[in-house]
């Protein structure tokens, strides 16, 4: 093979996208041709620079929220006739939550938490709820940095009393709370902040859920940590980096003891 022919194919050779026969021919040529070998070196260096130096433009959170919302609202509108109370924009779901509570009475249990499949789908719902909460006017029903304001706010709205602690001293201030709606049940959502990142903590009683605070899992670009303590389950969701989110989870669990 001549140098010109090699030069034409070096790029594909580097990407390992040539057929084996052509590849071997080029290898043989490179063994004996310093200038083509050097050209290959420059091209490999270019790839390295592109990977290391060219910025990777991740989607901003606002776009992520808009896109998730678009998918979700299409879906929710599609289901509107089946479940008219699932309106997310209005406050209809508050009434719906109250109705469900009245019917359910006592402590309800997430029966599908048993299997892995159910677990994964709760994880997805938790992330969807987190994303929805980032929409305008949906993050908080009670905006307060005072745990003594947030905790009583849940009284009469839920049949359990979520533990509420402010971690401002550790850099995770409580900023509010709201009622959220998961799997047809109302749950407490506590909202914390770390710099510009929002952390949602979804809390509900679940006698059957057990421990296993694993490493944060990543779903749709969000990190999710699951904790349980004394018959209560906690789902922690944020776009905050996994290390700081884990540190937050540790604080939360420590406060429960």
């Amino acid at each position, binding site marked *: 093979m001549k140098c010109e022919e090699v030069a*034409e*194919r*070096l*790029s*594909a050779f580097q*990407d390992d*996208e040539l057929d084996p026969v052509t590849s071997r021919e080029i290898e043989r040529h490179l063994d004996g041709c310093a200038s083509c070998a050097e050209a290959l070196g*420059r*091209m490999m*260096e*270019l*790839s390295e*620079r*592109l*990977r290391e*130096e*060219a*910025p*990777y*433009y*991740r*989607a*901003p959170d606002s*776009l*992520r929220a*808009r*896109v*998730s919302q*678009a*998918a*979700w609202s*299409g*879906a929710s*509108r*599609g*289901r509107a006739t089946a479940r008219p109370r699932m309106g997310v924009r209005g406050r209809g779901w508050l009434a719906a939550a109250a109705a469900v509570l009245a019917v359910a009475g006592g402590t309800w249990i997430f029966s599908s938490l048993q299997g892995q499949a159910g677990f994964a*789908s709760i994880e*997805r719902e938790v992330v*969807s709820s987190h994303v929805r909460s980032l929409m305008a006017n949906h993050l908080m029903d009670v905006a307060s940095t005072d745990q003594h304001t947030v905790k009583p706010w849940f009284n009469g709205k839920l049949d359990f009393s979520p533990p509420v602690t402010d971690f401002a001293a550790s850099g995770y201030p409580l900023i509010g709370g709201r009622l959220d709606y998961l799997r047809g049940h109302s749950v407490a959502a506590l909202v914390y902040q770390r710099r510009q990142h929002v952390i949602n903590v979804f809390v509900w009683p679940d006698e059957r859920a057990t421990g296993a605070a694993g490493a944060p899992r990543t779903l*749709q*670009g969000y990190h999710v940590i699951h904790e349980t303590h004394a018959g209560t389950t906690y789902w922690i969701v944020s776009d905050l980096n996994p290390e700081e989110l884990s540190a937050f989870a540790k604080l939360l669990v420590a406060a429960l003891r």
Partner: protein
Amino acid sequence: MTHEERPEATGPERHLSARELDRFNECVLPYLDAAHNLARYLLRDGHEAEDAVQDAFLRAIRYFDGFRGGDGRAWLLSIVRNTCFTRLRDRSASRENVEFVEEIHTTGEESPGPDVELERKAATQSVREGLDRLAAEFREVLVLRELEGLSYKEIAQVSGVPIGTVMSRLARGRKQLLGALRPKAPEEKG
């Protein structure tokens, strides 16, 4: 100027079933970052890239029943790149056609400063700038190959061109980019 007809933009809204939403969240949504990165390089403008990605997602939702499983990334990215190229065409129709000029201008000589940190920053700039000066078709294949790690087959699927075209675009794109970056080479060795 005349606007290209885009009937899908005014088509009826489509609703995803609960099951479709799950599949959408699993197969398509995870590639939002890749979608945004590609749009950002193609359009070279942050706001326009966000708009285009949002448009592309609305189309993806509308045509989700056309997605028969398989490679959700390639499927989404092809919608994104089509949205971006339509915008580039609209843009060049309304002003001078600058997108498809295939020649690139080498960056001016920059004197190597003593500050290493500064040099690194300057070098980063020039890789991005070098990319920005390439024709959109070359930026596209380089971003998909180098930043997303797609195979030629996948790139062909995204761009809607034969694999041979992907191959030659990558070769030409790299050659042009190397030309643009040559003034930086001595620093790398030093």
